[in-house]
């Protein structure tokens, strides 16, 4: 399917935008899963499918770990947000996308001439959006999702530069480690919050 990378790129932009704008863990988890699937397609442009699939499996495992923890957490009940918040976060995301579209061709010519422009754009959009998300919130699960997205963006670009089994293995450890650390912090935060909440209700 020749259009598959284009579809993957569009999915990446949409998933990154959804993760930036919305703060409901169900929506975030679904977007993260779609994002990993799209990133897998872009990595497949550089790597054989049997190696590239490692990224997909790792990503989905990390997503599952976070999603199941959110499911069990009482404090992650979705709250309604003011529309202006969503609008401004969306606007910030659009600005990032615009910036990447301006910067990426120059970067492609000057630094990564051998890498497909779409790979650079996809990777940079993921990295840029996740940095924006990282700066805008301090909820453990959102921070971890943005860090995972940041790493995914980097991995999409780096896959086009180098293929190494050890590097792939180490990145798997880092991704899963990040998800587990996220779970630890979420559970930890919940344990700290619980007595306070009870105290307040009394």
């Amino acid at each position, binding site marked *: 399917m020749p259009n598959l990378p284009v579809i993957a790129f569009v999915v990446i932009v949409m998933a990154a935008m959804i993760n930036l704008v919305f703060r409901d863990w169900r929506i975030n988890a679904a977007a993260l899963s779609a994002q990993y699937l799209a990133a897998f397609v872009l990595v497949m442009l550089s790597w054989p499918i049997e190696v590239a699939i490692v990224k997909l499996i790792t990503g989905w495992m990390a997503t599952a770990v976070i999603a199941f923890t959110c499911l069990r957490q009482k404090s992650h009940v979705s709250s309604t947000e003011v529309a202006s918040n969503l609008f401004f976060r969306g606007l910030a995301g659009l600005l990032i996308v615009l910036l990447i579209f301006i910067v990426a061709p120059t970067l492609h010519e000057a630094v990564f001439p051998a890498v497909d422009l779409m790979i650079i754009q996809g990777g940079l959009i993921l990295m840029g959006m996740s940095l924006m998300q990282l700066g805008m919130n301090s909820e453990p699960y959102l921070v971890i999702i943005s860090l995972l997205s940041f790493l995914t963006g980097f991995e999409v670009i780096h896959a086009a530069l*180098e293929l*190494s089994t050890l590097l792939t293995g*180490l990145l798997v450890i880092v991704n899963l480690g990040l998800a587990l*650390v996220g779970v630890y912090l979420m559970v*930890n935060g919940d344990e700290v919050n619980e007595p306070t909440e009870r105290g307040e209700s009394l």
Partner: protein
Amino acid sequence: MTLSTPIIWVVFPLLVAAICAALSTRRILSLIIASTAAFGLALLAAFMPENLTLSLGPLTILVEESLAFLGRQITLTYAILPFIAFTYGTTGLWLLSSNLPGVPVAFRSISLVITASLTAALGVEPFLYAALLIQTAVLVSVPVLASPGAGSERGVLRYLGLMTIAMPFILIAGWLLTGVVILPPESPLIGQSAIVLGLGFALWLAVFPFHSWVPMVSQRGHPTVISYLLFIIPTTILVFGLNFLNRHAFLRTSETIFSIIRTIGVMMIVFGGVWTSVQDHLKRAFGFSVLVETGFSLLAIGLATSGGLKWLLMLFPVRALGYWLWGYTLARLEHRCGSLEMGEIQGFGRRLPILSAGLFLAQMSVAGLPLLASFPIKIALLSQAVVEGTTIGVLSFVGTLGLFLFSIRLLMNLLQPIDIEDTQFWFLEEKVSQFLPVILMLVALVAFGLFPGFFTSGMTSILTAFPQLQ
């Protein structure tokens, strides 16, 4: 029988860590196992023969330098063994104090995993993959930093975020640098590679403005854990950074790069020093003084052409002793006082004189008080900084004064009389088991201060692992 250095100093400590984790409920047993393993590995690295052959009676063990792993190599050469001995020795030292109240049970196993990961980072080929092993060490450190109830999640998330962002910068910089070798000196890509690399290291070393997590984490974490992590991770990162200088001629011959590193170092010293002097929380002050120490490390690298790298390496052991004593005394005082706010510890110098003296002298040693461990190295660094530029020298000196000022404020608070002490000036509420480590460490600090060459010459031999930097 054949072994390899990575099996001894990477795989074996991981196994010991697993055993300690399994025995975590038996505190004394896991303490003995972990500290014995750490000190044993340190001694083995320190006294390993140059031909890497161990003879134990009839048994001869040949130790190879490399281990193949997933198609790549982890190589720990004989030249890097003094540093490995040092890291395991310091880990053992911190493990000895892991029985203090409030230290997370997981600290024993996690500290061994961290040291093993960082050791592997020093030997992995290609060396850039070390970034991932350092990231692994960072991830592993989170459970001991954010122990339940500490309320340190915000600082830890910031720490985790900045350290994670650093890793891709290092990997991309490494990829860029492989192409730089064949480029003409005027190519803009050289400067761009240096900027990307610099950003990665700035994030890793918590250089301003990426420093905010250090005081946050320091204030909330346990002093023993914090002092260990804020020592071992930046130290290994600095040694890993020497690889870049060793391998890339354009980095080690560029006066501009050294000048920038010097300037950043001085900025860190001034910034950290000023902030330390006005702190009211003892643990937060420790965080800021760590930034000063990072500044001194950068200043030493910036003075590499004048022998700065030797001072950098000589700073490591004295810093380890200072941090350990600082962490130990803070942990003891926190247990006794509950809070480490300046106002809360008034008069404690009269009740706990030896612990208080230990805390004061640990700070003074790190600050560079004459006769104490850091003084000979810091005075050499500051003198050379003045030679390089009066402004740099004066600013570094001003920054150094920050910790002195804070220590004097601390001393005044510790010795402030309170009502019940009107009739009796001194009390001795400390037990021998509590103050004996303080006294031993103070003796060590004075010994290091009086004979710096004798105690730190082993560290400078690490430079043989970096032939271009000798």
